[in-house]
């Protein structure tokens, strides 16, 4: 399978969302992009267009990016209506011009979702994800207090499944793809990863309750099982994790309601 390796240059029209600031109105503006190598990445194409705009004295298009290899989760464009554009299991920075045809009109927008307000052009504010993590996305372990790593064996199947979930890059495509702007896939991935380890058990209930509660309070919507999230996920994280989290959440809510709590939580020194 040596895929399309042709080097014939192509020209396209970009229809880009331009918005000067958070509270400003935005609109689509067309830009021609000519004689592009098909081996150029989509973001490199934006670099070229931006250099032309700069040379003309216009403001370049603001877009988020960093690693340009699909791991940092910074890039976040909706291309032709799909978060991260054509292709499955790739982020915006891994889209290559060979995915388009000469003469195409390519519509580029920021990830649209109410909890991700636009900052400028194609850049959005995704700090809501950090807030969810701060509420419970961790196992409490003070540096220096951990037991020997091999003293807690973990079945390979569990570790592998945890790694599948942990592959999330926190880009927010799942939210942008969901008509309800649900963050369930993001939260489920972290809850599942940590819940699969013996180390994650003590805080398991607390974690899922806190993370889901914070997610709800930040304005993310509900999951109605359309699974657009998994389809748009650059790491193809399975929606099965959502079902797993729902089970955890129910069990935790139940236990939380009925579990007797110790009256003395701190030590009296």
């Amino acid at each position, binding site marked *: 399978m*040596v895929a399309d390796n042709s080097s014939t240059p192509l020209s396209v029209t970009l229809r880009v969302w331009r918005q000067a600031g958070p509270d400003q109105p935005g609109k689509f503006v067309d830009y021609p992009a000519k004689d592009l190598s098909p081996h150029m990445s989509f973001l490199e194409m934006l670099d070229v267009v931006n250099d032309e705009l*700069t040379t003309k004295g216009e403001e*370049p298009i603001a877009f988020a990016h960093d690693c340009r290899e699909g791991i940092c989760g910074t890039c976040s464009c909706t291309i032709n209506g799909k978060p991260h554009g054509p292709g499955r299991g790739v982020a915006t920075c891994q889209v290559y011009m060979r995915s388009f045809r000469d003469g195409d009109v390519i519509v580029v927008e920021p990830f649209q979702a109410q909890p991700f307000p636009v900052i400028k052009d194609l850049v959005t504010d995704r700090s809501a994800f950090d807030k969810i993590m701060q509420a419970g996305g961790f*196992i409490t372990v003070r540096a220096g207090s951990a037991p020997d790593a091999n003293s807690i064996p973990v079945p390979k199947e569990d570790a592998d499944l945890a790694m599948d979930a942990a592959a999330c890059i926190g880009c927010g495509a799942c939210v942008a793809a969901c008509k309800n702007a649900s963050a369930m896939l993001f939260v489920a991935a972290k809850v599942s990863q940590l819940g699969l380890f013996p180390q994650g058990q003590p805080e398991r209930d607390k974690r899922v309750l806190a993370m889901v509660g914070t997610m709800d309070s930040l304005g993310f919507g509900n999951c109605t099982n359309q699974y657009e999230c998994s389809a748009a996920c650059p790491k193809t994280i399975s929606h099965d994790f959502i079902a797993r989290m729902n089970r955890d959440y129910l069990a935790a809510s139940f236990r939380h309601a009925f579990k007797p709590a110790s009256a003395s939580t701190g030590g009296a020194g």
Partner: protein
Amino acid sequence: MAKLESKVPSGPLADKWRKHKAEIKLVNPANKRKYDIIVVGAGLAGSSAAATLAELGYKVKSFVFHDSPRRAHSIAAQGGINAAKNYQNDGDSVHRLFYDTLKGGDYRSREANVHRLAEVSVNIIDQCAAQGVPFAREYGGLLANRSFGGAQVSRTFYARGQTGQQLLLGAYSALSRMVGAGAVELHTNSEMLDLVLVDGHAKGIIVRDLITGEIQRHAADAVILATGGYGNVFNLSTYARGSNASAIWRAYKRGACLANPCYTQIHPTCIPVSGDYQSKLTLMSESLRNDGRIWVPKKKEDRLKEPGAIAEVDRDYYLERMYPAFGNLCPRDIASRAAKRVCDEGRGVGETGLGVYLDFADAIRRLGENGVRERYGNLFDIYREITAESAYQVPMRIYPAVHYTMGGLWVDYNLMSNIPGLFVLGEANFSDHGANRLGASALMQGLADGYFVIPYTIGDYLASHKPGSRPSPDAPEFMAAEAGVRALNARLLANKTGVPVDHFHKRLGKIMWEHCGMARNAASLRKALQEIPKLREEFWATVKVPGSGATLNQSLERAGRVADFIELGELLCLDALTREESCGGHFREEHQFPDGECKRDDENFAFVSAWEFQGEGKAPLLNKEPLNYEFVKMSVRNYK
């Protein structure tokens, strides 16, 4: 002249760290909350430090230019992290890891620092496993290992091809916990643009809020920089586009010594450059060298033939031939130079002739396609996305690319720079990798610094400063630094017409790669030292930064960083010119053995070059910290 006291404790090598920990000053628990610590950067080094210091009770302010700490460049590390656990029972030990790292660094690092690194490596794995980092495991549920270059034991822990991501997310979780608990104040989208000194001590920073453009002053009792490496001085590299040197460069201009800037690492296995528009180079993890075999055709005439059409006898598996003991797993500097040599001989493959094959045919025969997919599937996918070729069917084409910088701000054993109160962690410091870093040891160092070293050593500094003695952010030193930052930004925004920033970055990169890349010589370095100041002049006269400083302005961010890279590039070349020897990643063509190996000069160059800023337009001052090897004999590296 800067005072460079390494503060290496006395006593036997293996006891130094234990003894030091027992003897350094402590801050009592009730007083810790009275100290504010600024941590710039939240990669492995910064986030582990911020989380751990907050756990201890200090008040921490964390700053990153990214929109979230989880996006730091550490996220991109693929292959793994070393630790002397000896879980494989294959003869590993703290001493062996220490020795391999020291030797890998070509005897240009500090013995005591490297030994400490090897000692705490075992704690890192414990810490990360407890955090829920999904390390690869064997069927029995215990941790798995793989091999990396420069070692004859299997001591590298990994999480598929995403080890950096998983370790960073572990540290980010720990940091998030402390943010949630109110113990860390997190400032995202915040770029440090200057360091503030009061009475000669680091007491704060000037920051630009990248979203609103606001310039802020932040004061603290100590400042930690964990801002990563400066490899993007070459423009094309495996670094993230945003990785930059501005934090360390501006600290340098405030008096912090910059050590060994010429020690840069060129990684042998990256996807070759394909066109002028290219913005970054993608690494194919060193772990691939566990199973892939590197070769080029023996005859020049064969170089454009389909690889499958070149018979086994006509192939030159040159690493296996030249370095039979380590073969494809020899250290990076050696593998990179060997690739350059065979390409210079005209035997390089691919259209540009700048490529060698990394072939998995044998591995597929041995393990089956699925076996190979299980180990390296994600890397093969990345390769296919970028090149549109399947490495299951044709060998990968690879070429060396800039990957890591061993140089960085000078620090003592406590990780404090020569500016009191300024600490430097992770890739931003110079301390542990000498002239060449072994694979899987940067992640180890970042986490060692953050989880296990700085929590002890910072106390030694703070204990001698009364709680509450930090200056106000309205002190004149802060106001002056803020004014300086504003003036610099105004200057960058001044040109009405001109040339985009990236144009200068590309040109700088070409100068650096051509004259100060894998092989360097005096004539070529002198040429670079003429060209860079000209580029700098042209930059200020013609760079065009559109828009204003009062909103998100990505051109302005880049312009500031490129301005610093141009200056840093000049110092890097000067350091390379001054170091009249070859060692590790620094290869001077004038100093080689007949077989092309590095010719080190221990008599004259067994020192750390610590450069000190002397003012704009003035030549920097070279300070030397002698490298005294008390326990290991400096010898010629041999991987044959």
